[in-house]
């Protein structure tokens, strides 16, 4: 179990829908954020910081794995990978020649995939046929390579000293980010706008293999397996039940046109939020981003229809067999983000998991019962989840651990919380809020997220709401959510 995980989750606790604005004016350390909307719906937010000549550049799309269709899971994440493969003007010396070859590759691979699918759905795949098709594809890929300028956009970023060039996909969002020396900002606006205007998903099938390797990496990790099983078991209708990486068989069947369609639907400028934090003046930022992005036409956004999760009617339990030593995760459904109960829900986790005087640490770890035990509140757009990860110390068992965990939850439900603890938690909340100012990537992500999901970036500052939670609130919320019928337990057991 990774200790770090719960700390990071605790620090990064957000809710995505809020009805009230918090009063940020009291906190003199809050960043000064300026927002600008272009006529095509693109939103730009700028935070000026001129102490070092660096700009953190952040591009956020309000799309993630919850928007995926059955049979095409993993597409949002795969698209994220393919976004690095260039455009009609970048990473190529002759796109029109590439296009011909790519069409041939696509039809050959469609045949190979179809054959492969036979084997996966109860029939028998002709391995010889597949091998022959792949041979032909390999030759075409070699032919295409002569036109490709390998990973050129990344090379350009490298050569101008861009750092932290990376991207991520999750349930609710896809984001792309890096930092540049401030005199090179235009390189970013140029390249990123090309990626939005005219992406080319070249090297499609080799990247499909890379994504499958990424999937395998998580498959060999018991930690990841437990959490994936937890979500699979907790969520039967909400699309949190399938992992962002997607089912391998789905990923293995994704076609270039699937990706193109998904990109067209969800990467519209009116579904895009750009945040620049650093050594850039507001008017220059507006001008530069406008120069490159404002010409991209807005699109009608698809109906993001998501089936809500019905209340869980009883405890769910699952096991994952592995060679790993005993460990477990427990999940509780939490309040919807628009529900003010979310604040008490998060404060409960501060009490349970934060610091050496937290309940779990004091009563379970310090006593030698648990090797690790800590919780985190997951920030999802549709509902929150309290995840508790724990591993027992020999000779104790997961059963012993589970019992002890529920004992602590019971105490919280009874309102057995001291004044000292509440003061401590308020101090922790204050300390956490300084992270916004110190870490530009964290600030950018927060601003984009709250603007995208609540319509107002100011909502990222939840400090006062969290600090005004009372013991009564805690009791009420604990008794509503931390109950048996609302929980799911997943345990690693020997094969």
């Amino acid at each position: 179990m990774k200790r770090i995980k719960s700390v990071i989750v605790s620090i990064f606790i957000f809710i995505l829908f809020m009805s009230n604005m918090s009063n940020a004016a009291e906190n003199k350390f809050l960043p000064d954020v300026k927002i600008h909307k272009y006529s095509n719906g693109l939103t730009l937010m700028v935070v000026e910081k001129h102490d070092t000549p660096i700009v953190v550049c952040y591009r956020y799309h309000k799309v993630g794995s919850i928007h995926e269709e059955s049979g095409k899971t993993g597409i949002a994440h795969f698209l994220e990978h393919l976004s690095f493969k260039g455009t009609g003007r970048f990473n190529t010396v002759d796109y029109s020649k590439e296009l011909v070859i790519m069409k041939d590759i696509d039809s050959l691979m469609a045949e190979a995939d179809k054959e492969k699918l036979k084997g996966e759905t109860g029939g028998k795949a002709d391995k010889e046929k597949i091998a022959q098709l792949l041979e032909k594809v390999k030759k075409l890929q070699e032919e295409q390579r002569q036109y490709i300028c390998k990973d050129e956009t990344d090379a350009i970023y490298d050569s101008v000293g861009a750092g932290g060039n990376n991207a991520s996909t999750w349930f609710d969002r896809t984001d792309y980010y890096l930092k540049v020396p401030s005199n090179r900002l235009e390189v970013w606006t140029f390249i990123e706008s090309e990626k939005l205007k005219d992406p080319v998903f070249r090297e499609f099938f080799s990247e499909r293999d890379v994504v499958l390797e990424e999937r395998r990496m998580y498959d060999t990790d018991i930690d990841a397996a437990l959490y994936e099983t937890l979500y699979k078991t907790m969520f039967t209708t909400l699309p949190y039940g399938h992992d962002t990486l997607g089912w391998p068989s789905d990923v293995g069947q994704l076609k270039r046109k699937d990706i193109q369609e998904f990109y067209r639907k969800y990467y519209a400028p009116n579904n895009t939020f750009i945040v620049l934090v650093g050594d850039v003046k507001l008017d220059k930022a507006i001008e530069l981003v406008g120069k490159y992005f404002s010409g991209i036409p807005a699109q009608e956004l698809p109906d993001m229809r998501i089936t809500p999760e019905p209340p869980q009617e009883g405890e769910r339990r699952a096991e994952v067999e592995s060679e790993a030593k005993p460990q477990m995760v427990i999940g509780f459904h939490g309040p919807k983000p628009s529900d003010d109960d979310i604040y008490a829900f998060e404060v409960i986790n501060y009490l349970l998991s934060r610091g050496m005087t937290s309940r779990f640490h004091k009563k379970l770890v310090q006593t030698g019962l648990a090797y690790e035990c800590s919780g985190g509140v997951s920030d999802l757009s549709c509902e929150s989840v309290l995840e508790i990860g724990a591993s027992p110390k020999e000779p104790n068992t997961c059963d012993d651990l589970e019992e002890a965990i529920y004992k602590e939850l019971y105490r919280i439900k009874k309102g057995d919380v001291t004044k000292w603890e509440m003061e401590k938690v308020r101090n922790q909340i204050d300390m956490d809020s300084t992270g916004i100012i110190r870490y530009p990537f964290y600030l950018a992500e927060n601003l984009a997220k709250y603007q995208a999901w609540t319509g107002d970036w100011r909502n990222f500052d939840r400090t006062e709401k969290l600090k005004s939670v009372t013991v009564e609130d805690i009791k009420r919320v604990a008794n509503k959510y931390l109950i048996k019928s609302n929980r799911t337990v997943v345990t690693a057991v020997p094969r």
Partner: protein
Amino acid sequence: MKKILKPVLIVMALILFFMISLPLQAQQKGAKESEGAKAVKNLHFDPLNIRVPEVGKDVERIVTKNGIILFLKEDHTIPIIDITSITRTSAEYDRKDRFGIARLTGDLMGVGGTKDFTPDEFDRERDYLAAAWNTYIDSEKGGVFFEFPSSQLDRGLNLFTQMLRFPLFDHKRLEVEKGNIREEVLRENDDPATVASNTYKRLIYPDYFKGWKYDLKTVKNITRDELKDWHKNFFRPNNTMIAITGDFNREELLKKLDEQLGNWENAPVDFSGYQKFEKKFKPGVYYVDMNMDQSNIRIGHLGVTRDNPDRYALEVFNRIFGEGFNSILNEKIRSNEGLAYSVGGGFSLDMPQYGTFTMGCATKPESTVKAAKMMIDIMKQMMDEKVSEERLNLAKNYLINSFLYEFEDPVQVNRGILALEYNKMPSDYNKDYRENISKVTAEDVQRAAKKYLQPDQLTIVIVGNVKKFDKPLSELGTVHQIKLEDEGK
């Protein structure tokens, strides 16, 4: 940072203009260049003024009367004080037959209570401040890190001092930490990446603590006195450096530091337990049979020390060979062939004693031997061929242009200055870094590769489902099986 012009200091060359003008046309590795890349070259960039922080200007260096070297940096943008203290000690002083003392000493300093506080009281005091903290002894230093709200200067300084000077090593807390080590050992075979890493380290570093496994009986018998003696010997003012950054007033801070640390006694430190290890090799193929859908591969041997004369050539080598999307390893193994999601390699350049040259990746069983061979071939290519001017310039441009990220925020700047002095780097290291990188040629890179790479001495570790591998492992070298011990007791 206050932007005050001081004409009198121009001669000290405080402002370094961004003047490295390597040919920008060499951005990708072939002679090919897209229309977009050409357009980027036509963009205009203003020159960039980068300040390289200096002691005396950006950070104040003070030596206290009892020998503590302090680095102070005021910063009022956030209401926090960050204290990073490092003491010259390390696990290199840990004897193999008592392995665990250094680690336990470091860990217990933070959790074992102190002179004025029982362990529980200390936890409460520290948690109430919502402090971020850590105490540890690692491969090179004994650290106490403490960060707290600036409104709590007195409390914060006191708690920091308690951890640094007056740890109690409470026996109950010691038992908990011993239990943690035990649990760590019991669980070390849970994850194949960890298995690969441990197996590799144990082969590469038989005479260095990184390659030692904790012996649970030994750990059980480590006493409080051993930890106290360790602390007493090493944790002395004359052996400690502290960087303090944040929202403080200089005069007030110095006065309070004197109150807390002024009567900390100097004493000579016994460094005689230091263990130097020799550069030895352990060639061969060592496999662990584990039923996994992905193999973990680690290949390498011992490399260089921090003070090696070819540092800059090796930095450029690392960037070209195995760091970043455009490295050769990434291009060939991930991007072209789709064999791996995670792949990389290079020399570790910041070890006081030998670091390693290591390359590795994770790939499906059916491409395991293929991936291993590819990595080895690419390594040999670095020795046999000069890298192209394009690759060279790309790597150098990256290193030069991204250097400013070393100085992004005040805490980082101060810690960087602290580290430079602690690691005995030349004081001009930062000032001269970019010029030193710009001087590296393709010949230098090849020469360094030839000098430090040993293709016949490779330790090759593979963890995976042997039955499903594409080729027999004997194609890579002499094969040995490693059986995992299950510490069930």
